[in-house]
């Protein structure tokens, strides 16, 4: 991919050891993220979608260094993160931020909202104290909160308002990219709409790129430019939104889109009631990780892992059969 | 919740009546005591329980009566051809409890190990004048002394161990074989020592067939256990208030008599403040003997007037220490130049305040109370008195025995002979002279008292020394300790108590 990318991830791996025995030797590995590559352009929204445990959140946390990657490279604005010294890392942290899913645990219950937002400015020593307070007021206004609420504690806010505070905190350092880790999953649909609109506005006005992590295909379809589908630590398909939803290539993508309710009682799905569970990340299936659930699976899928390859329409998919 | 518990327990107990189960009719007694024996080797005994248990398991050459007279035990008779020689004749056919014969060799073996420095016998000092012990024949033992040593006989009640058994690897400490009236049947450490009558004792088996010595550390708990019927006998040390109560209880018989111990003040004569006998006299006048003896000790002890026990043959009522008088003490201090010149309520001299530290050990609450009282009285006389209370090892071995104290409250037990309190402690350079007292005249009198074999001469020497000490005051004797023994009535045998607390008088053995 050309160097137009703001952030590019190459073969990212996050493995967690499973220890056992008398001396707690490593006996197995959970490959939570197992060779993920993608890139995000300035002002673009790339969504990571998949079911719980597929590694999408871990990927986001690894990008921010909140979990330690086991392997792979991250390039930001042309420079490789692995080589960053402390000072550069601090700069990187200014430019890459995160918004969490749970609006309750994402704010320190004992700190006032003003402090929660200003902390970013404090850490990076931006401006004078008064300037920072003024900036906090501006940020609050920007995300749709009344600046006079700055001295309140988090418990005095509703879930949606807290999510706005979280966004304001992430915005404080004027980042280039925000990792949104399921930012609307915990919210009621009306509030979800408010936040999605806010995120769209911010992107439009500030040119921020999003890595948008979600399990909700509807939300993903709404907000993304491109979508990457993850399954058991790997990306199985990555494509522009329209292409992906109009005609999924990977059988897993198909399965996901078919599983989403229709919102049209006259065109109901006939869901199969039979059980079909995601295999555990510790005992990943050999070959194509999806073969245990795939309607197209053949012998080759059990033995050989398909590579993520480019298809004629420009998308990437990892399947032997499509 | 505790109340609820109490109630349930109460109901349970009520339904089933009194808890104590009386078992056999054969003559068995349970004696309560304060410490467990550390060893049952008579040569190494340190604590009272070990000493008393060993006294039953073993027999010595002599036996001390309740009047502290030496009477024959294993020895049938003895003679002293000269002041430095003693010859003992053993009884015929003596046997250890394992059936082996007891001969002069065993006696020699026992005493040789006691005087051997490497054996580390705690009371070796008492035997240091012995220069040689020989077995003249299997029934005759000869002691040779380096100097005349009058108290010797009262120390020769030490139990005789079996040489053969020890050399065969039996440790007398845990596996005692003696020739005493009883044998060890079980020793549950920390809990009890169980003894049974020994039919092979030369005097025949005692009337009481079973003795259990039960260890209950806390004085009050022991008294309560006695009242609850778990024990047949308890004796000193006891809390004064328990004594008063038990005395009034007609379920119990008692023996209350003068003991063999004193409670005293040890002045460090090396201390600049206390070097002057006048100062020691002044301080001694601040000790309220009456309150200590009659209130704190509730009259179980007697007010002491001199360093010689009233029960001793050396006692003289004419020797008097200073008596309690705060005014007298203040006058004395003033006379010696200590005045409250700055009006802060504390006496001073040459710009220095009159400060002393009173100390004792924490284990004995009566001593602690005595020190508290004395401290308050000293304060009232303008002495800035501090109190230091620590546990026994810190107090004795790390403080008093190193001469670091100023005014220490202590006790001394088992004074079977005046020599035992005086010689080592108050003669110049004496091995236990922690207060550093030195007076050549006293030295001379003490030496005389120990080497003269004539009791009248000894008494005269000790009285002369005591007179000097009563005004020189390296020690101020507060009280002569009493001895108390309580027993449950009816008791299977006639109780014959000895102030040493030995058990032979409780098992029906005549003296």
């Amino acid at each position, binding site marked *: 991919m050309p160097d137009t990318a703001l952030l590019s991830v190459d073969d990212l791996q996050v493995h967690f050891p499973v220890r056992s025995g008398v001396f707690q030797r490593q006996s197995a590995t959970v490959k939570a993220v197992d060779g993920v590559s993608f890139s995000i352009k300035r002002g673009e929204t790339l969504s990571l979608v998949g079911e719980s445990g597929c590694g999408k959140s871990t990927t986001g946390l690894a990008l921010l260094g909140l979990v330690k990657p086991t392997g792979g490279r991250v390039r930001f604005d042309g420079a490789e993160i692995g080589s960053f010294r402390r000072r550069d890392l601090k700069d990187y942290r200014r430019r890459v931020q995160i918004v969490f899913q749970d609006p309750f645990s994402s704010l320190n219950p004992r700190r006032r909202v003003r402090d929660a937002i200003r902390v970013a400015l404090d850490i990076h020593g931006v401006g004078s104290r008064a300037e920072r307070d003024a900036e906090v007021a501006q940020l609050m206004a920007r995300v749709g909160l009344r600046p006079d609420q700055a001295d309140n504690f988090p418990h005095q806010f509703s879930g949606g308002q807290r999510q706005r505070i979280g966004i304001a905190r992430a915005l404080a350092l004027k980042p280039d990219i925000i990792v949104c880790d399921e930012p609307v999953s915990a919210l009621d649909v009306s509030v979800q709409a408010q936040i999605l609109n806010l995120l769209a506005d911010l992107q439009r006005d500030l040119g921020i790129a999003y890595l948008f992590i979600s399990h909700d295909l509807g939300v993903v379809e709404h907000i993304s430019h491109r979508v990457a589908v993850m399954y058991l630590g790997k990306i199985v398909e990555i494509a522009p939104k329209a292409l992906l939803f109009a005609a999924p290539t990977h059988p897993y993508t198909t399965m996901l889109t078919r599983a989403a309710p229709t919102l049209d009682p006259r065109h109901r799905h006939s869901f199969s009631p039979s059980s079909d569970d995601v295999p555990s990340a510790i005992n990943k299936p050999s070959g194509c990780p999806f073969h245990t659930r795939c309607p197209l699976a053949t012998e080759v899928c059990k033995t050989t892992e398909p590579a993520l390859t480019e298809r004629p329409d420009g998308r990437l998919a990892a399947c032997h059969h499509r | 919740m*505790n109340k609820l518990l109490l109630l349930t327990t109460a109901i349970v107990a*009520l339904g089933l009546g009194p808890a104590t189960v009386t078992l056999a009719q054969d003559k068995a007694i349970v004696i309560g005591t304060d410490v467990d024996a550390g060893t049952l080797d008579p040569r190494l005994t*340190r604590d009272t329980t070990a000493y008393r248990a060993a006294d039953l398991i073993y027999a010595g050459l002599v036996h001390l009566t309740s009047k502290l007279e030496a009477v024959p035990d294993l020895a049938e008779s003895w003679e002293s051809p000269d002041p430095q020689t003693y010859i003992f004749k053993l009884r015929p056919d003596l046997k250890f409890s394992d059936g082996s014969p007891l001969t002069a060799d065993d006696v020699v073996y026992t005493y040789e190990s006691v005087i051997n420095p490497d054996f580390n016998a705690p009371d070796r000092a008492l035997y240091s004048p012995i220069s040689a012990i020989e077995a003249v024949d299997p029934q005759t033992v000869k002691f040779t002394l380096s100097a005349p040593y009058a108290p010797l006989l009262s120390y020769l009640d030490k139990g005789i161990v079996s040489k053969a058994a020890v050399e065969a690897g039996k440790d007398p400490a845990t596996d005692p074989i003696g020739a005493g009236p009883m044998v060890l049947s079980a020793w549950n450490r920390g809990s009890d020592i169980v003894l049974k009558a020994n039919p092979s004792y030369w005097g025949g088996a005692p009337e009481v067939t079973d003795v259990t010595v039960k260890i209950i550390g806390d004085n009050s708990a022991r008294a309560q256990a006695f009242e609850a019927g778990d024990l047949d006998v308890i004796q000193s040390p006891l809390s004064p208030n328990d004594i008063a109560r038990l005395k009034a209880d007609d379920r119990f018989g008692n023996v209350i008599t003068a003991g063999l111990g004193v409670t005293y003040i040890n002045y460090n004569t090396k201390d600049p403040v206390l070097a002057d006998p006048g100062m020691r006299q002044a301080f001694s006048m601040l000790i309220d003997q009456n309150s200590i003896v009659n209130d704190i000790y509730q009259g179980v002890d007697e007010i002491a007037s001199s360093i010689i026990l009233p029960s001793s043959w050396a006692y003289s009522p004419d020797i008097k220490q200073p008596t309690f008088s705060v005014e007298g003490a203040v006058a004395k201090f003033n006379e010696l130049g200590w005045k409250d010149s700055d009006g802060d309520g504390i006496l001073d001299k040459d710009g220095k305040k009159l400060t002393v530290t009173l100390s004792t050990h924490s284990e004995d609450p009566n001593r602690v109370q005595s020190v508290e009282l004395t401290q308050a009285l000293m304060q009232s006389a303008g002495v800035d008195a501090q109190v230091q209370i620590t546990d026994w090892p810190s107090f004795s*071995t790390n403080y008093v025995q190193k001469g670091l104290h100023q005014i220490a409250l202590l006790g001394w037990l088992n004074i079977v002979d005046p020599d035992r309190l005086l010689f080592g402690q108050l003669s110049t350079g004496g091995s236990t002279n922690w207060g550093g007292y030195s007076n050549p005249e006293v030295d001379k009198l003490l030496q005389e008292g120990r080497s003269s074999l004539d009791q009248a001469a000894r008494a005269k020497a000790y009285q002369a020394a005591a007179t000097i000490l009563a005004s020189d005051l390296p020690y101020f004797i507060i009280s002569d300790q009493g001895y108390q023994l309580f027993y449950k009535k009816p008791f299977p045998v006639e109780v014959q108590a000895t102030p040493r607390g030995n058990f032979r008088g409780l098992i029906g053995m005549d003296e």
Partner: protein
Amino acid sequence: MLAYVIRRLLLLIPMAVGMIVVTFGLLLLVPGDPAAVLLGPEASPEMIANLRRTLGLDDPWYVRLGAYFWQLLHGDLGRSIFQSAPVSEIIGGRIGATIELAVVALLLATLIGVTLGVLAAVRQGSLIDTVTMLLAQLGVSMPVYWLGLLLMLGFAVQLNWLPAIGRGAPMLDAIVAALSGRPQVLWDSILHILLPALALAANSAAIISRLVRTSMLEVLREDFVRTAYAKGLRRPRVVVRHALRNALLPVLSVIGLRFGALLGGAVLVEMIFAWPGLGQLTFSAVSQRDLPLIQGIVLTFALIFALVNLVVDLLYALVDPRVRLG
């Protein structure tokens, strides 16, 4: 599972080493000379010096510590300075009494604590609840030795229902005796242990009852309790089978810690009730500066403490299927 047990046992080694070193260091600094205490006040300085040499007290500290570890490696706890017996034998003779006392106290505490805690939780806000919790507050606030003396005064001295002090036959022997037709021996043992065990248990019972109540109230709010009601189960069954089992899980881990506290409290209780256990021994060993004995006791306590906690953790895994030991 086995690996877990082995690992936990191995973790005991650094703990034991740490405790030995700390004990050793402390006792090195404690004033008071065991040799002088041993020989008594009539001993002369030369005698004391001689004994110190014999006991090796004059060796430099590292030699003594090294020697101790060396001896320990050979499974030897050394000999008591004061009691003419090996430390292991002395402790062995005492440990049964203390464990018996602590176990009975723990059983009492658990029985009382759980019963009262459940009653209080099920009748939250009622008079039972208020009274129980008030008693629990008093229970944790009462100095154990004061309670012990009051119990002794009331039941042994005033009422003369229970023996004031001492121990009957060891409980196991007593049970054997009872089985072979002499129940009075067991009865005697039980009567002897009641007061000390009660004094020792009061505090823990209070703590456990409060914990059970809190835990029970929390569990009663859990979704699965609602599910149980939704199945149509009656209240007693829901409380006992569904709520109590889960509510006891946190109690279990506290019981392990309480056992440590009981062992600590045993010192005072044993002194008051003349219970011939490790507690009394501990106090006398400390007050005699009997270093090898103190070391042995400390190690024993550590071992008991660690083992009890291990057992508790294993039990936890047994009753809570969610817990995986590994």
